[in-house]
């Protein structure tokens, strides 16, 4: 049928859809396992795997020299995680203090985390080493459908003028979907304000470019409302505090927490997370043991509501406790320019002077009406997976279904349940699979754990050989000396 329609069709055994860090680490694993580039393609609308990640981190105030929130041994460019980023930066910057910090984290020191620039530089090196760009096909994937004879068809719209037809099709035995976050979701009251007033300048999401906020505040004193209690709120706060200090600004900050954490919280002495001043504190996005310890082992056995309950217990917005941030907030509170309050925003309106008026109701019944020049939404809400056309299509026609927390249900080896086709398999990794047997999916290490599960499953199916200690060691030396796999 495809051939009869005159649509060009390409056979490729393994196809990854997405082209971000999820696709990259999966292809990297398979290349190291020994799969040649001729067996794999990645379809993407971006040019290099860290492009979207870098855009989002830069918007949320982490330019290349700043540090991301990620463990030192979570290296998407190095599946062994050795040497860790801390060792590399200590060597490169001739700074043994990094080694002391990594050895004493998080007891005597904050967690050591890598600079964004270190991550990107190494990704580029590894992408070149595995010949990533030989596998890249530019285009927009429309859908992935099961094929009657087994395997899958992937329908792609190539960039205009690069192909004779509007669509091209890939026929593959294995497809891997790693398309990242389906999209940003705004807080409803902020969305309403933006639409009603057509104002996309003063009410912004922290993941959008919003440099105008900081530029405005340099020109005259202003007030900013921050919404949310996660890492992005911490980052934006730091930028506001830094600018205040660097340029002698008068910025006033009102920080609204819907859930205001006042101290350690949790149902049991064995499940209590630290907190205070509004925040819940945690080193990384998830408790550390989800990437290999106790929580990973426990979650792997849970089904249905028990799994959903476990996700709830360890979930909740949180941010790391960092000394520098604590100092800045303390100074802000005592200096009277940082005000953290609990409250739910009922609506946002335009004040008579053109600024924004938030109606904030606290749990104790107090109603506050702060007026601000800008509102920055740092809640980082994610859209539903069905907002993305590929997932919507899979849920409707592909046999896929949702897991206990509403995202895509996958097996322990990341095959999307219900989508098997003959001897082929359809895999997914990343944020869309949150709620599965493995929780830390939307993190560097989580993507690597998924990639390892997928690569091992592919070896069981005969697509590649499983990597044992000898090959692993010899491949590590190739990585270390930057030799082709």
């Amino acid at each position, binding site marked *: 049928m495809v051939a009869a329609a005159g649509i060009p069709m390409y056979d490729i055994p393994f196809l990854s859809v997405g082209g971000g860090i999820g696709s990259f680490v999966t292809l990297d694993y398979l290349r190291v396992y020994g799969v040649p580039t001729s067996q794999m393609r990645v379809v993407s609308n971006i040019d290099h795997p860290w492009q979207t990640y870098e855009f989002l981190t830069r918007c949320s105030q982490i330019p290349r020299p700043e540090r991301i929130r990620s463990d030192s041994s979570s290296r998407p460019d190095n599946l062994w995680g050795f040497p860790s980023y801390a060792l590399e930066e200590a060597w490169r910057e001739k700074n043994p203090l990094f080694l002391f910090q990594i050895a004493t984290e998080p007891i005597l020191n904050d967690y050591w985390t890598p600079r964004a620039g270190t991550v990107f530089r190494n990704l580029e090196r590894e992408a070149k080493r595995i010949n990533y760009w030989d596998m890249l096909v530019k285009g927009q994937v429309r859908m992935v459908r099961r094929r009657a004879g087994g395997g899958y068809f992937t329908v792609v719209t190539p960039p205009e003028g690069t192909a004779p037809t509007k669509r091209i099709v890939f026929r593959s035995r294995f497809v891997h979907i790693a398309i990242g976050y389906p999209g940003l979701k705004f807080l409803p009251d902020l969305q309403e304000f933006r639409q009603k007033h057509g104002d996309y300048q003063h009410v912004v999401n922290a993941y959008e470019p919003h440099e105008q906020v900081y530029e405005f505040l340099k020109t005259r004193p202003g007030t900013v409302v921050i919404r949310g209690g996660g890492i992005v709120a911490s980052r934006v706060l730091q930028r506001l505090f830094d600018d205040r200090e660097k340029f002698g600004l008068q910025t006033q900050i009102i920080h609204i927490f819907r859930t205001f954490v006042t101290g350690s919280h949790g149902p049991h002495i064995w499940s209590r997370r630290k907190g205070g001043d509004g925040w819940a504190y945690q080193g990384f996005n998830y408790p550390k043991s989800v990437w290999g310890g106790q929580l990973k082992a426990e979650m792997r056995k849970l089904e249905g509501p028990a799994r959903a309950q476990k996700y709830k217990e360890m979930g909740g917005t949180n941010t790391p406790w960092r000394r520098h941030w604590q100092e800045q907030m303390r100074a802000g509170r005592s200096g009277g320019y940082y005000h953290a309050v609990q409250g739910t925003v009922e609506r946002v309106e335009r004040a008579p002077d053109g600024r924004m008026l938030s109606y904030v109701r606290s749990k104790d019944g107090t109603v506050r009406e702060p007026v601000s020049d800008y509102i920055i939404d740092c809640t980082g809400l994610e859209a539903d997976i069905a907002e993305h056309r590929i997932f919507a299509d899979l849920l409707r026609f592909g046999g896929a279904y949702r897991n206990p927390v509403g995202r895509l249900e996958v097996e322990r080896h990341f095959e999307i349940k219900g989508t098997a086709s003959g001897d082929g398999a359809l895999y997914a990794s990343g944020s869309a699979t949150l709620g599965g047997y493995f929780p830390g999916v939307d993190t560097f290490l989580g993507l690597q754990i998924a990639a390892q599960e997928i690569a091992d499953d592919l070896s069981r199916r005969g697509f590649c050989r499983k990597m044992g200690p000898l090959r*692993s060691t010899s491949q590590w030396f190739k990585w270390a000396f930057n030799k082709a796999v």
Partner: protein
Amino acid sequence: MVPTLFGRIQTRLFLLATVGVVVTALIVPVLPGLSGPLSQDYRVAFLVLAAVAVLGVVWELIYHFLMQFRWEKDWPTLFGLLTLVPEGLLLFFLLRSGAIGSLIDPVPPASAFWTQFVVVWICVWLVSNGPMRVPFIRWRFRGGRVL
């Protein structure tokens, strides 16, 4: 690596049986304070190593219990290093008090015991914090289980 209970025990036994054995084999001839024949020194040193492994299984149960009080259910790198103090002191006390003296005879002098114990411990700690991941790519994702 963030351990599970079985992972802890397996990692300890595996690393003592590999790194521990190699390091012990290398340093016995230069351990201070030993005066007996080399074969006897080796026998004692490997018995000490075995005692660290056997007692260690009990220690790992205690560490696992203590870890439950941590929200992240992790075991910071520093803990892995500092636990050499209670473990070393207990083993030293057991040797000196004669509690396991009948098994390890003659009891090594303090200088030989502490040199071997600390050097082996630091080597095991260093390997478990990095190089272990090079041959064993699944180890860190399985809570330290080798099998």
